[in-house]
């Protein structure tokens, strides 16, 4: 299992246990983490699962794929650390991962 911390725009933290193999978005939705909408259900087709990966974890999660970058064009306040959480696969090495959710999901 991998522990993932979601920090909302207002600072509220939610910690969830995620099973390796699922995506960070799925871990959020399964545990009703606020701030992740995931309208398209993880198909990289909506950009409403946008998160900012904590700087300490950016190397481990890696950069967005080209298709994901295209979809990020539609997100709110995109930064260098932006990822779509449905495109981050949970692996043991991500145990302790910290991500922030943006003020809004569009």
């Amino acid at each position, binding site marked *: 299992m991998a522990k993932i911390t979601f920090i909302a725009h207002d600072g509220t933290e939610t910690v969830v246990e995620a099973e390796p193999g699922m995506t960070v978005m799925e871990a959020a939705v399964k545990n009703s983490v606020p701030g992740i909408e995931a*309208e*398209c259900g993880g*198909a990289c*087709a*909506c950009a409403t699962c946008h998160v900012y990966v904590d700087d300490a974890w950016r190397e481990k999660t890696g950069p967005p794929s080209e298709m994901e*970058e*295209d979809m*990020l*064009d*539609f*997100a*709110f*306040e*995109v930064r*260098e650390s932006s990822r779509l959480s449905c495109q981050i696969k949970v692996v043991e090495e991500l145990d302790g991962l910290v991500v922030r959710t943006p*003020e*809004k999901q*569009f």
Partner: protein
Amino acid sequence: MDKTGPTAADGRAAPSSEAPIETDAVIIGAGPVGLFAVFELGLVDIKAHLIDILDKPGGQCAELYPEKPIYDIPGLPVVSGQELTDRLLEQIRPFEPTFHFGQRVDALERLADGRFRLVTDRGNAFVAKVVVIAAGGGSFTPKRAPIRGVEEYEGRSVFYAVRRREDFRDRRLVIVGGGDSALDWTLDLEPIAKSLALVHRREKFRAAPQSVKRMFELVEARRMSFHLGQIAELHGSDGQLEAVGVRSKDGALTRIECDAMLAFFGLTMKLGPIANWGLNLHENLIPVDTEKFETSEKGIFAVGDINTYPGKLKLILSGFHETALMAQAAHAIVHPDRKLVFQYTTSSTSLQKKLGVR
């Protein structure tokens, strides 16, 4: 994602006043389920016209995930959204459906003779004996720009589509986006705008490379400007934009004076006018029975993602099944004098004739 380019949106401006098109059935929505409805209706001798606000067939499959694989279509272990659309088009070709793209059905009402009259936002009218609503998640509509406070300006100085090109003549224009809509409109409006600034968040564009090249040529010739960054601020009052603030990657803020902004952030599905047709709705879905898939109005059917009933699953597979039963019920309305005999496409001479394989 970006299919609201100049041709599609411009056409919407001109209403036509021709006589209504009379047909057996009108199918609202040309997604996978609307397409297969043509097949099932065709087998029972019902001719159909399809109307979709998109400029192409395939609904969600073609618009949201053309390249992605679908694994649960019976008999096709894996098929992409676009491939499924293409195969459906091939399958329904014998029934010669007529497509009406780039228009939204706005009105639906029953006529005194029991038939239905439909009118689109382009002013085209249809009269049909039955109506099949295959509207999925609703009409594909431009997404709101992800900018704080944008609501205040929408419709007055912030737009998501071009209704009349002339509205932008001699105006200082900001266009946001990196897809085909943004680039096509940039190239189209540059000659008539007073000034034009294109804003996109990164160096890579989703738009066709030749449009991007053309845009940079215009920048080179100082006929427009290009800004790398995201819109962070809107300045203005009473819905009238005066300037926008563009934040670049390094955090620097650039102010661009403007009168109007056109923003292209893809499409999303909204129920739209269906809510005004007097049908029973349940949480934006249309309740139907599971024998005929008929709505609260006799002769109006609903199939695919738009309907709901106990146990409903929003799967393409389920939508296909629904069209087969719907067609049986539609037959009784369109051809009340004819008896329907159950037949297989494998062995029935008459069905094979209709399919053009005999």
